[in-house]
């Protein structure tokens, strides 16, 4: 196909939108299960990781291999926790169809995912806004430490995907990524102050979309591992 418009890499703007949609998707799925302290811990851990990896170049090939293996284990674990969590919300047929839809997106290129994120971005925000407006009640702030935080961190700290796919981004700029993360975190914190029921139409649509987006990202990386598209060179 003619690539005269140089579409092989995604733009930094598209990547920012993907980050925001990804973080919103994760938070929508887990918003009832994690408390504020969990949320803050996850965000701090993510920022800590970014600061560490920002200027780090991994030269040792063995270390790269171990990190890659850890990443693969993380994807499989995350996939397991996701399906287990989703089985509480959807029936078996619905999960099967969700799986098929996610696999379909994961067989497409990274550009397709970036374009889909652009399309979903404003409907996502508008749906969130409608949910927030229609739910005036404010939750009590809880400071209980949740021991189930480990799987949540595994899933919420999806910024490892960020580093694995930076070669697919034109003009990769860590500062712009941080801006996107802060924006998403602000939206999540504001959203989590509202007591939202699961019976709201927009809430259900967002939940389905989030599950689809989240599951397909894991499938995408898994497929790339299987066909050797991801190698040690992806770790800078």
């Amino acid at each position: 196909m003619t690539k005269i418009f140089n579409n092989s890499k995604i733009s930094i703007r598209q990547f920012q939108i993907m980050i925001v949609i990804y973080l919103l998707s994760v938070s929508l799925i887990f918003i009832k299960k994690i408390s504020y302290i969990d949320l803050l811990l996850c965000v701090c851990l993510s920022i800590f990781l970014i600061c560490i990896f920002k200027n780090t170049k991994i030269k040792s090939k063995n270390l790269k291999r171990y990190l890659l293996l850890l990443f693969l284990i993380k994807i499989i674990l995350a996939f397991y926790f996701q399906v287990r969590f989703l089985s509480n919300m959807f029936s078996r047929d619905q999960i099967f169809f969700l799986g098929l839809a996610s696999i379909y997106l994961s067989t497409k290129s990274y550009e397709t995912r970036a374009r889909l994120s652009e399309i979903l971005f404003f409907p996502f925000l508008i749906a969130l806004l409608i949910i927030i407006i229609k739910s005036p009640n404010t939750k009590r702030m809880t400071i209980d430490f949740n021991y189930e935080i480990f799987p949540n961190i595994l899933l919420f700290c999806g910024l490892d995907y960020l580093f694995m796919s930076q070669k697919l981004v034109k003009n990769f700029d860590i500062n712009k990524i941080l801006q996107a993360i802060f924006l998403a975190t602000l939206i999540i914190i504001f959203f989590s102050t509202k007591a939202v029921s699961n019976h709201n139409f927009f809430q259900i649509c967002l939940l389905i979309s989030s599950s689809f987006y989240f599951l397909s990202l894991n499938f995408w990386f898994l497929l790339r591992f299987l066909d050797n598209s991801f190698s040690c060179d992806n770790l800078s």
Partner: protein
Amino acid sequence: MSLEKDIENNILNLEKKIGDCVDFVSRKIFFAHTEKYFYIAYFESLANEELIDRQVIESLSRSKIDKRKNLDIFLELKSRLLVTSGVQQTENFELILTMILSGETILFLDNCDQALIISTRKFPTRGIQNCQIESGVYGSKDAFCEVMRFNTALIRRRIRDINLKIKQVRLGTRTQTDVAIIFLSDIVHIEILNKIENKINDINLDSILDVGYLQEFFDSEQKSIFPRSQLTERPDKTASAILEGRVAILVDNSPFALILPATLSTFFQASEDYSERFWIMNFLRSLRYFAAVIATCLPGFFLAVINSRENFLPIKFLLKIEQERRNVAFRSSFVELISMLIAFELLSEAGVRLPNPIGGTIGIVGGIIVGQAAAEAGLVTPIVIIIMAITSIASFSIPNANFVSALRILKYLILIPAAFLGLSGFVLSVLILLTHLCSLESFGIPYLHPFVSGEINNFNDFEDSIFRVQIFNMKKPIFSNNFSKKNKN
């Protein structure tokens, strides 16, 4: 195979190849006051006999030829004696056969291995008529016809630019159909043009009878029901597309033009959008996008919502639906809806094939039978008839028939998951549709441009998407090769 110097051999070869054709006409005509003669041949169903009689036979038979060498006679014929506009010489026998089958007249001369091809085409044609499919309130009303030369003339009248180029090729081993590739050489993307030309040259078919044959070749790279090239019967729309930097293809005997490349937003643009003030047109264009969503998603959304365990609709409305459903034979709303949609598809197809005098009557009768009688017989609920009617009317609001055909199939692909899986099925099928659309490209341009990857052209293409700005504020679109420049169109 080349011509020979002996005219009798050339005549024999030609008549042997043509065989028994009742409309094949050939004559030997002598020059005045000499024993020298020339031979002409043509098909009377394709050639302009009046022109041949007047400009060729009468003119040459009265000419006095000096006793000079035949080659001089040939040159004199070509440059002085023949008073027609198009004359070319050739020694290629296959070309002679092709041209005679295209309506040209062939002239052989004795002791000469060259022949003259005289332009005498005249086809039976219905002339320029009004648009049948893409009619509108404002703008020009003329449409393309089956004669390619007339169609190129309609475009040349609108674009009087020296950079407007028309390249012609012949396709189809049996039909030898003329195909014209039209573009503006200073703004077209050379890579896109080369790719189009290469694709056309790779076509190896017996026959090309319509431009739709070519559309399948261009859309074959990615499997999809969505067209990635535009078919139009309007010369003004074609001219507008060429002025944007796109390429138009015309095929002889086809009253449509094929425009490449095409993105989703181009299928929602009508030529009269630029004839009306932009406030009104913005409203109408956004209505078209809304109509596309209704045409695709309304049946599926309706089923998803009424079958859902959660009550999203007002209680009174749900009670009304439940009350009506008690009197209906089918247990499932899915069966009702799909049977009504298929009945309407049958009516649409029948309406296209029927002759004009009875086509309208069948439509009214069919609507009454399908609609009112089915509801009174207890086969369907009135709400289902309303959903079906709104869906169908919405699909006819979109200007491009090719794109509407895709939506006709799409609504079933969204309806089926919604029927079995409820709201999850509906949302996931819409997401799959969006994924598919995001993966499509037309010659490297994302299909959903400018809604995705708008930064390629600094978001200038938003100026003519769902809404359009005033014409004098528009920038160059992405199809133009200097799209990155911020010059006004």
